[in-house]
C-alpha cells in the first residue's frame, strides 16, 4: 500500500480505457437497493467514468426471503393504479414534479376505491396534459430503446416515451382501464436486458430507463414461487 494514495483511508479510483479509448478514472458506484423512485431491492453495480456507465451488473436482493406476495397482485389493485404509479415515477425522474404529483394523487384515489365515473375525468385531463407536452418527447425519444425481438413483452416495447404514452393511452381507454392485474409481468425479462441497455448510458438516462421499464421486484418473488 506504500505507493498508493489514500483519501480518508479509501484507495483512489483506478483507471481504465473509456469509450473513446482515453484512460480515465473509474469509480464503482452501486445504484440501489434503496433510492428514491427506484424499484426496491434492485441493485445495479456500475463502473462509472464521469457520469457514463461503462459496465453494469444487475441483481435483485432479498428474493429468497420474500413471501411471494406481490403488492400489485392483491385484490383491489387494478392495473390502472399501477400504470399511474409507473407514470408518476417516470415523470418525477424526468423532473416534472407537478405532473408526477397529480398522477400519484389519482393513483391513491383509484386504490381507495373512488368510483370510475368520478375519476375518469381527472385522469383524462392529466393524460391530455402529459401528451400535450412538447418537451417530453424531445427529452425521452430514443431513451431506453429495447431490442425488438419476439421475446420482448409487448407492454415494454419501444423507448421510454412509447411506454409512457402507452400507459397514458390505456388509462384513457374505458375498456382497458378496468383490467385486472397482470400476472404475465415483464419484470423478469426487463431485469435480463437491463445491463445491456444501461451500458454506455449517462447516469441521468439510466435512471429514466429503469423508471420507464416499470420493474416490480415483488413480481420476481411470485415467479420464483411458481417455479418451485
Amino acid at each position, binding site marked *: 500500500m506504500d505507493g498508493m494514495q489514500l483519501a480518508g*483511508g479509501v484507495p483512489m479510483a483506478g483507471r481504465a480505457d473509456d469509450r473513446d479509448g482515453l484512460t480515465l478514472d473509474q469509480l464503482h458506484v452501486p445504484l440501489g437497493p434503496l433510492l428514491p423512485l427506484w424499484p426496491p431491492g434492485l441493485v445495479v453495480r456500475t463502473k462509472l467514468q464521469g457520469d457514463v456507465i461503462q459496465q453494469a451488473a444487475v441483481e435483485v436482493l432479498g428474493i429468497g426471503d420474500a413471501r411471494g406476495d406481490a403488492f400489485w397482485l392483491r385484490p383491489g389493485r387494478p392495473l390502472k393504479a399501477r400504470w399511474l404509479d409507473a407514470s408518476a415515477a417516470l415523470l418525477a425522474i*424526468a423532473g416534472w414534479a*407537478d*405532473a408526477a404529483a*397529480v398522477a400519484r*394523487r389519482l393513483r391513491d384515489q383509484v386504490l381507495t376505491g373512488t368510483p370510475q365515473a368520478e375519476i375518469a375525468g381527472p385522469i383524462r385531463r392529466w393524460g391530455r396534459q402529459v401528451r400535450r*407536452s412538447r418537451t417530453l418527447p424531445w427529452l425521452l425519444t430514443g431513451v431506453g430503446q429495447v431490442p425488438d425481438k419476439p421475446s420482448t413483452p409487448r407492454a415494454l416495447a419501444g423507448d421510454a416515451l412509447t411506454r409512457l404514452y402507452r400507459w397514458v393511452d390505456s388509462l384513457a381507454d374505458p375498456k382497458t382501464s378496468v383490467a385486472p392485474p397482470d400476472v404475465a409481468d415483464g419484470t423478469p425479462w426487463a431485469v435480463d436486458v437491463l445491463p445491456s441497455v444501461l451500458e454506455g448510458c*449517462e447516469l*441521468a438516462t439510466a435512471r429514466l430507463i429503469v423508471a420507464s421499464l416499470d420493474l416490480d421486484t415483488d413480481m420476481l418473488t411470485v415467479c420464483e414461487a411458481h417455479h418451485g
Partner: protein
Amino acid sequence: MVETTAWGVLLLPVILGLFAVGAAAFDATLAARAAGVAAPRSAALAPLRSAAGLLVQQRRRTLAADTLLWRAAGMVLLVAAVLASLVTPLGQWAVGDLSAGVVWFNAMEIVAWAAVWLAGWGANSAFGLVGGYRFVAQGLAYELPHMFVLTTAALGAGSLRVADIVAAQQDLWFVVWMPVAFAVYLLSVLAMAFAGPFNHAVSSDVAGGVLAELSGVDRLVFVAGRWVLLVSGAAMAVPLFLGGGSGPLLPDWLWTLVKTALVLAALVWAGRRVPTIRMERFEEISWMVLIPATLLQALFVSLVVI
C-alpha cells in the same frame, strides 16, 4: 438619473431576502396545489418551516470531505447573489452606479459557477460531483447566449452603465424591440439559478446532486443563495428590458418592486411546467438555436442604433 446610497447596503439584503422567501413560498404553494393538498395556503409557510428545521439539524459528514471548500460554497453563492444586485437600481437609487455595471452583474453570477461546483466537489460523493459537473456543462450552454443578450441591451443604450440603459428606455422599453433578447435573458436567469427546468445539477435522479450531502446550516445557506440568485436575475430584467422604474401613478421605486415581483412569479410558475432539460439536450438547443438567435438580435439592434 440614478443616485447611489450608502444605507442601501443595509437595505439591499433585506429586500432580496424578502423576495427570496416570497418566491420560495409561491413555489411551495404551486407544488402543494398540484399534489392536491387540502390547504395549499399553509404550504406557503413550508420553506420557512424547513429553514427552521435546517437551523437545528446536525451537520452530516462524509468521508474525506474537503470541508473548507464545501462549507465555503454556500457562502460564496449567497454573497455573489447579493453582490450581483449591487448595480440594480430601485427606482432612482442604487447601491453602486458602476460605469461597467452590466459587466459587474455578469461577473458576480459567474462566481456562482465556482460555488456550485465546489459544493458538488467538497462532499467527496459521486452524486455530488456528477451534479457539480452538470452545472459546469450547463454554464457552457447558457452563458454565451446570456452574455450576448446583456451586450444587446448595452448596445441599445450605448453604455454599460445600468442607469444609462434605463434612461435609454424613456420612450420605448427594450422588451418591445428586443423581444428575443428578453426571452433568452429570462431562460438564462432560470439556468444560472439552476431552477426548473434547468435544475439538472440538483435533480432527484442523482439524489439531489450538488445538494445530496449538504445538511443543516450549510444547506440552508446554499439554498437561500440559490433563491437570491434567481431574485437578482429577475430584478435585473427590470432595468435592462422593462424600463426600470418608469410607469404611471406609482412612484418609481414601487414600480421596480412590482415589475420584479411579476418577473419572478412568471419565472417560478413557468419553471414548474416543464420537465428537467438534460445537459446534452440543452447544449444542442443553446448552440443551434439560442446563440444564432441572440447574435441576430444583437445585429438588428446594432443596425438600428447606427
